């Protein structure tokens, strides 16, 4: 059962994912093209809140979009986004956050950036692109191979975001411990913090 703190975390993280889509992303190389940080927000939801709360916060964000708020990157929103060719990616979002969260919980506390990046790639890219490509193929009337080629354009950017998301998750877990369960290491001292 979700406690009130979980509900608060889910609601606030939906806000964070929205903010990452609305705030023009800080471009690392000074390019004018704003790279949207929103797909990074999906990975962060799982990497910071874990599987269940992460997936629910993404689901809440999608519900807010459906009821008419323009919270997707570039101010898109409303029901239209759910009938276009990229609907599969939206369906894949909560799944991606869930997979990232599951893998992150396996890593445990203290968070490890390299393993975290691998979790983000497996969940935030692999688990996301499967429904994404299927959706593109169904709505766009494409074969799976053409749909894959069309979607592949975004993979390099997403790889960079997966690494960046792991670095950010590392920073957040260091500053705000207790969101993911402690790792049962042979060497680890008994854990005092149980927040």
């Amino acid at each position, binding site marked *: 059962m979700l406690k009130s703190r979980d509900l608060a975390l889910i609601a606030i993280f939906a806000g964070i994912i929205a903010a990452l889509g609305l705030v023009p992303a800080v471009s690392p190389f000074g390019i004018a093209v704003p790279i949207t940080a929103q797909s990074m927000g999906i990975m962060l939801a799982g990497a910071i809140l874990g599987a269940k709360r992460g997936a629910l916060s993404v689901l809440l964000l999608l519900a807010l979009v459906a009821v*008419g708020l323009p919270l997707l990157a570039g101010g898109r929103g409303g029901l239209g986004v759910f009938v276009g060719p990229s609907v599969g990616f939206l369906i894949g979002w909560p799944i991606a956050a869930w997979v990232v969260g599951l893998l992150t919980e396996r890593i445990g506390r203290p968070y490890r950036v390299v393993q975290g990046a691998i979790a983000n790639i497996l969940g935030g890219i692999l688990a996301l692109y499967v429904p994404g490509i299927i959706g593109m193929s169904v709505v766009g009337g494409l074969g799976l191979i053409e749909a894959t080629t069309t979607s592949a354009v975004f993979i390099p950017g997403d790889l960079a975001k997966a690494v960046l998301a792991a670095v950010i998750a590392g920073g957040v877990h260091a500053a705000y411990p207790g969101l993911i369960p402690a790792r049962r290491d042979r060497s680890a001292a008994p854990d005092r913090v149980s927040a």
Partner: protein
Amino acid sequence: MAGQAVPLFHPGTSLVHRLGAGTKLLSLLVAGVALTVWRAPWQIAVAFVVVLAAYAVARLPVRLLLRQVVRLAWIAVPLFAIQLLLASWQAAVGVVGSFVALVLLAGLVTLTTRTTAMVDVVVRVAGWLRRFGVDPERVGLMLALGIRSVHVVLGLAEEVRDAQYARGLRASPRAFAVPLIVRSLRHADRLGEALAARGIDD
């Protein structure tokens, strides 16, 4: 920046505005099924006439329609080209026309329906799922909290951004995201306590 989170709803008193949210959503669903079955060029043409007529009845500014068309172009144009190349012009019109018409119709529902009316529909649907353990009141609470949270986090984002500029950390995404998320999580702690104090856990 925070102003961008205002709902897409465009107020009006037309027939389309006055229709119930549930009716509009059901029509959209029916249109979605219809357009997966019927997508010959003339049927697509009929769909566009109907959608554009509905926009006219709703008396929405043309720029709202055009903005959606422009946003669709980045995917619609390449898809049309691929279909034309790999299949036929009929297939291209069928595939691209059906989803463009559907997206425009969905956009019309969003533009003419208040967010609160949509939330009511979501809560009503959640009521049907009660037997699967869904608590409709909690769904309504989460939607309200979510809407509020977007504004809270956008406010925090502005604070963090100002702090970042003040310290000259202009080009670091990490220096933006980490403090934003940590501040937001701390806010969630206070929010959680407030919810617990109101008996949400009971």
